[in-house]
C-alpha cells in the first residue's frame, strides 16, 4: 500500500481568538494533484503555512512523507517545492541570483531551471534585471520556477496562477501534469473552480475554516449545480423543464436560466427538439458550488 504523502489529523489553528482553520482531516496520496478550493479568507493559506511549518498549530498533527513536520521538517523540506500565495521577493537581487540563491539552500540541484526559464519565456536580459523592475506576472513566474527547478517530490502551491497570462497558465498546468505523470504529488490551492476542475484529481472544499467536502473531480462534476443559460427561437413553456435535477432559476420570454445537477444528457435530448438561439454555461460562483454541499 502506498504511504500517504500528506496526512493531516485534527488540524486547528487560531490566531489569538480568530479562527484560521478548524479540525481539518485530510490524506493526500502519491501521484495525486489535490485541489484545495475556497474563497479568500477560507483558511487555504493558513493550511499551507501550517504544512510548511511557518506557523504552528493550536491542535492537531501534520505528517509529510510519513514523518511529523514539527520534528522532521529539515529532512522533509529537501523534497518540497513551494509557491507561496502572498510573498515579496528580494527586490535588490537579480532574477538569476534569486533562483541560484534559493537553489543553494537545497540539496537538490536545479536541474529544471533552464527548461523552466525557457518555458515561461524569461529572457537572459530579464533574469539579469533586478527583481524590483519586474512586473507582478514576472515575479510570479520566478516564484514558480524556484519551486519547480529542483524537481521536488511534493509541490505545494498557493494560488500559483495569480498574475499569469493564459499562455503562462497553460505552461504551469503542463508542468503540474508532468509532475503527476512522474508520480509526484501536487497540493494546489485556488479560488477558481474551472482551474481546479481542469487539472486536479480530487478537490477539498474549504469554507470559513472548515473542510466541507473532499471529492473526486468526476464526483464533484456530478454533484455540482451548473448554471445553464438558454434562449430559444420559438415559444417554450417553463413547465417544459420539469424533470429530475433541473430547476428554472429565472426566465424572460424565451430566455431561461436553469440550475442543473447530475447528468446533462436527458436535458439536452429534450431541448434538441426545439430551435436554440444561444446556449451559455456561465461560471458558477464558489458560493453556488458550495451550496451543493450544504444541501
Amino acid at each position, binding site marked *: 500500500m502506498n504511504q500517504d504523502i500528506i496526512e493531516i489529523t485534527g488540524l486547528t489553528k487560531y490566531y489569538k481568538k480568530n479562527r484560521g482553520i478548524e479540525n481539518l482531516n485530510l490524506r493526500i496520496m502519491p501521484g495525486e494533484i489535490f485541489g484545495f478550493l475556497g474563497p479568500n479568507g477560507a483558511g487555504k493559506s493558513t493550511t499551507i503555512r501550517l504544512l510548511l*511549518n*511557518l506557523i*504552528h498549530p493550536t491542535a492537531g498533527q501534520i505528517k509529510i512523507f510519513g514523518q511529523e513536520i514539527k520534528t522532521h521538517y529539515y529532512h522533509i523540506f*529537501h523534497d518540497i517545492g513551494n509557491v507561496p500565495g*502572498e510573498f515579496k521577493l528580494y527586490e*535588490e537581487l537579480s532574477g538569476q541570483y534569486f533562483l541560484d540563491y534559493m537553489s543553494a539552500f537545497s540539496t537538490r540541484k536545479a536541474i529544471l531551471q533552464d527548461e523552466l526559464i525557457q518555458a515561461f519565456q524569461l529572457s537572459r536580459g530579464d533574469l539579469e534585471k533586478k527583481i524590483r523592475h519586474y512586473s507582478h506576472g514576472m515575479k510570479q513566474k520566478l*516564484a514558480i520556477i524556484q519551486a519547480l527547478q529542483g524537481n521536488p517530490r511534493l509541490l505545494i502551491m498557493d494560488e500559483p496562477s495569480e498574475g499569469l497570462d493564459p499562455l503562462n497558465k497553460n505552461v504551469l498546468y503542463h508542468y503540474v501534469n508532468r509532475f503527476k505523470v512522474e508520480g509526484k504529488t501536487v497540493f494546489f490551492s485556488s479560488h477558481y473552480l474551472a482551474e481546479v476542475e481542469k487539472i486536479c484529481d480530487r478537490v477539498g472544499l474549504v469554507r470559513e475554516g472548515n473542510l466541507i467536502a473532499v471529492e473526486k473531480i468526476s464526483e464533484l462534476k456530478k454533484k455540482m449545480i451548473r448554471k445553464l443559460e438558454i434562449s430559444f427561437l420559438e415559444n417554450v413553456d417553463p413547465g417544459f423543464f420539469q424533470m429530475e435535477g433541473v430547476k428554472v432559476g429565472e426566465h424572460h420570454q424565451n430566455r431561461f436560466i436553469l440550475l442543473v445537477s447530475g447528468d446533462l444528457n436527458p436535458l439536452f435530448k429534450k431541448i434538441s427538439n426545439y430551435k436554440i438561439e444561444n446556449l451559455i454555461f456561465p461560471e458558477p460562483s464558489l458560493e453556488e458550488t458550495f451550496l451543493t454541499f450544504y444541501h
Partner: protein
Amino acid sequence: MTLVRIVYLKKIWRDQRYVLLVLVLFAALFEYLYTWVFLKSPVSNFIEAYFKFLPSEITSFLGVQAGTAFYQTQMLAFGYVHPLILISFFFFSISMPARYISGEIESKSFDILFSRPVHRSIIPTHLFIFMSGATAIQVIAVITGTLIADLQFSLLLRIYDYTRVAFVAFFFFLSLAAISLALASFQNDRGKALTKIIGLVVFLYFYDTITRLNEGLKNLYTFSYFKLYQPGEIIMNKVSVSESILTSLILIVIFLTIAILQFNRRDL
C-alpha cells in the same frame, strides 16, 4: 543539519557592503579630523579655552578637563563616544535585525526561504556573525584614524590604551546587536521593531546622561548600560576592562539565546 550557510552571509554582505564601506571610511576620517581639529589645528587652543569655561558638571560628563595633563588623552577618548561615532556604530545593530527579521516576517519573504531545508536559527546567528565582522572592521577603522593622526602629528599616544578601548567597544556594540536581535524576533513589523530598538537606545542614553549629571540620581548610574563603554575611564585606568567585556559577553549570550529561541518557536 547544516548550521552554517555561507550563501546567506554572502547575500547580507552583498546588501550591506557599500553601507559598511561608507561607515568605515566615515569612522576613520572622523577620528583623524577630530584629532587634528581638537588637538593640532589653529582653533585647538580656542577649544581648550572654551572647555575651561564650561560648568564642571558638563566637563565631568564629557570626561574632559581642560588645562590638565590629561586633556589630550581625555579629548581623544571623547572622540570615541562622540554621538556621530555612536550613531555609526549603532547603524547595523539597529537596522539589520529590524530589516532581516521583522521586515522579512512582515513581507513574508521567509515563506519561500523556510520551505527549504533551512534551520531557523540560521537567521539570528548569521546576522550576529555579520554584525560581529562589521563591528570589528568599524572598531579597527576608528583606531586607524587615531593612529594615522598620531603618526602625522607626533602625539606619542600609547597604542595599548587604544587597543583596550577597541576591545571594550567591540563587545559593547555587539551586546546592543544581540539586544536588537532579541527585540526584533518578537516583532512582525519592521517599522515597529525599528521604533522599539531606537526607543530603547535613546532611553538608555538619556538614563546614562541623567544619572551622571544629577547628583541625586548618582546611585542609579551603577545600572547604566553605557557605563560598559567609557573610553576616557578605560584609558585613565579607572574601570576594569575585563569586567566591562565580561558583562557585555553575558548580555550577548543572554539576548542572543532569547533571539534564537523566540525566532525558532514563533509563527512567521
